């Protein structure tokens, strides 16, 4: 059961209880009062009738006992005060009445037991399908006993009370319904932001990390929603980072897998050739040479791979004179550059660089080696320039250049602009990826600009200070 439903149900319940109790109490009290008032009226009327009748009859001081005179006097006196509700009886016989009923059937006054002090008795109940209230008392006139009744039909009063009760009930029910409706509406509106939060949370759990709860209320729920959104944003950032890392790693592992499989396949195939086929001596020598080359290549690949993987972020930076760094690069690239017939020209100012010398050397050797491959073998004016100006190191060539579409990807592991040419130069596709990693570890920017047919410039910008 939802919170708003619980709250609404509780409110409606309490409301119903209060209204029911109040209505019932009011209704009972009103009924009691009204009925009592009408009873009192009827009793008073009977009392007045009895007194007036007896006083008047006695006033005439009837001396005669003769029947007809006496009875007509009594009738006369009674009719002076009687109305349609009055009945006069003597000894079980009706003397005067406008009614068709005999009240002594329900209210027998000759029973003297339990007679109240004022001599008046009452009856209340159903008589011939009507609600009736009657009061009666005995009157003594010259030794004769008369019974005086006032009989009132109170059906209408009862009916009115029933109608009133009905109206009360209807109004109460309407009130309860309206109250419950209002509470439900209010609670529901109040709980709506919570539902929105819940939906957002479920969608985020389902992987839609970009979802936010659109709750803008200024109450506690609004504050909760704001916190929730902050949390969702943090989760999204983290998930994006993790996804990107995982993606990079997957590509890297895929690359490693591919790069290892090619030389392994070649080695395996040539080993089988040597094992199974009756090769000529020339063919044997060729197969062995293939195997040797592939093994050397695997060895180089493994080393570069290890460096790429094991390069730590907590490098040791020391101040190194630019000259010293350049000398180290020159000496470690001398052989390969002269093999290729490429000249390396260097230039530097007297600045000192705050770097890990071994790693920075490795970075620059990779860039210089890469630049050397930008020339076709045997061409003229093949020069690579390495310059240091304050905190900026540049490696420039005037070779064939890198196509714009390849420029964005050259730092990706195993990416090669021209795979077959790169392979001929012994490229692994890892050199520039390694350079980028070293630059990142230094907090340096590694950027490249290139124009097809004119050359390429790599620029390492070390952080100042």
């Amino acid at each position, binding site marked *: 059961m939802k919170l708003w439903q619980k709250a609404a149900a509780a409110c409606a319940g309490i409301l119903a209880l209060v209204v029911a109790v109040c209505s019932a109490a009011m209704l009972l009290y009103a009924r009691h009062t009204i009925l009592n008032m009408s009873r009192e009226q009827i009793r008073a009327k009977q009392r007045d009738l009895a007194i007036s009748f007896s006083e008047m009859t006695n006033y005439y001081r009837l001396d005669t006992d003769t029947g007809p005179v006496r009875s007509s006097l009594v009738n006369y006196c009674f009719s002076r005060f009687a109305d349609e509700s009055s009945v006069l009886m003597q000894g079980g016989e009706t003397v005067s009445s406008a009614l068709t009923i005999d009240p002594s059937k329900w209210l027998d006054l000759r029973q003297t037991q339990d007679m109240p002090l004022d001599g008046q008795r009452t009856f209340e109940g159903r008589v011939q399908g009507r609600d009736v209230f009657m009061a009666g008392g005995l009157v003594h006139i010259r030794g004769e006993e008369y019974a005086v009744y006032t009989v009132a039909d109170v059906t209408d009063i009862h009916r009115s009370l029933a109608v009133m009760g009905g109206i009360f009930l209807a109004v109460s029910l309407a009130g309860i319904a309206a109250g419950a409706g209002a509470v439900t509406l209010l609670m529901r509106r109040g709980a709506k932001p919570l539902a929105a939060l819940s939906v957002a949370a479920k969608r985020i759990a389902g992987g839609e990390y970009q979802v936010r709860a659109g709750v803008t209320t200024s109450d506690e729920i609004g504050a909760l929603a704001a916190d929730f959104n902050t949390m969702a944003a943090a989760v999204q950032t983290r998930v994006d980072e993790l996804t990107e890392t995982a993606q990079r790693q997957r590509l890297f592992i895929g690359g490693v897998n591919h790069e290892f*499989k090619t030389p392994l*396949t070649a080695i395996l195939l040539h080993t*089988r050739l040597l094992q*199974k*086929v*009756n090769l000529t001596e020339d063919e044997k020598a060729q197969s062995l040479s293939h195997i040797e080359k592939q093994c050397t290549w695997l060895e180089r690949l493994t080393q570069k791979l290890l460096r790429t993987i094991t390069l730590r972020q907590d490098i040791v930076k020391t101040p190194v004179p630019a000259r010293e760094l350049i000398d180290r690069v020159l000496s470690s690239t001398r052989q390969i550059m002269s093999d290729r017939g490429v000249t390396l020209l260097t230039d530097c100012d007297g600045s000192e660089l705050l770097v890990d010398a071994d790693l920075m050397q490795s970075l620059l050797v990779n860039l210089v080696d890469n630049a050397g491959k930008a020339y076709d073998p045997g061409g003229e004016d093949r020069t690579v320039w390495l310059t240091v100006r304050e905190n900026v190191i540049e490696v420039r060539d005037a070779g064939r250049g890198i196509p714009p579409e390849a420029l964005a990807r050259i730092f990706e592991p195993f990416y090669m602009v021209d*795979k*077959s040419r790169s392979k001929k130069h012994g490229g692994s596709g890892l050199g520039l990826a390694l350079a980028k990693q070293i630059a990142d570890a230094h907090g340096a920017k590694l950027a490249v600009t290139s124009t097809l047919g004119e050359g390429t410039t790599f620029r390492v910008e070390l952080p100042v200070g």
Partner: protein
Amino acid sequence: MKNRILIVEDDEAIASAVALSLQVAGYDCAVFDDGAGAAEALQGDHAYDLALLDIMLPGVDGFELFDHMQTYHIPVIYMTAKTDSASEIRGLRDGAEDYVVKPFDVQTLMVRIEKVLRRTGRLNTVYRVRDVELNSETKTVTKSGQPVYLQPLEFGVLLMLLKYKNMTVTREQLMTEVWGYDYVGETRVLDIKIHSLRKKLDLTDAIRTLPKLGYRLEER
């Protein structure tokens, strides 16, 4: 008629090993190290029975090259280091006959090549060594044009040796292929069949015994 195989593989060491293995076994091979070159050459000579394509080729890759092969109705087997199922599915969905994943074994590749050639009705069913000719379709063997009767098991052994001509065929390979996986018994029966083949067809020096390895039918 030898079956002609087109090989497009940018790694020279792999290409040379595959080509050499197929050539000694009796196939004609043409090797290209890039897709563009192969596509260009196809416009002139496209009488190939099958193409072995590397997928990761510089320039025009294996998948692109496949369209050229379709033009000339050349069945394709991919040789790939890509193990991800997406590229396998793409290769086969596009209509390639089969694929092998690097690193692979040449004899496995040869089995697949044979299957594809047979399926496409291009398999050369006549094998030759010296003056001996075996027709795997009609199950007949002739020597200098004269029919020679061989027992079924002898025929099976000779066919295996001819399929992998100049290549060592291990005793296990022969036993499994000719006698069947579930054969349990004396493997000396193999030596007996080899002996009778050598005698019937005068191939004593051509069928070489490689101790502990197997046999090799040599003709180079």
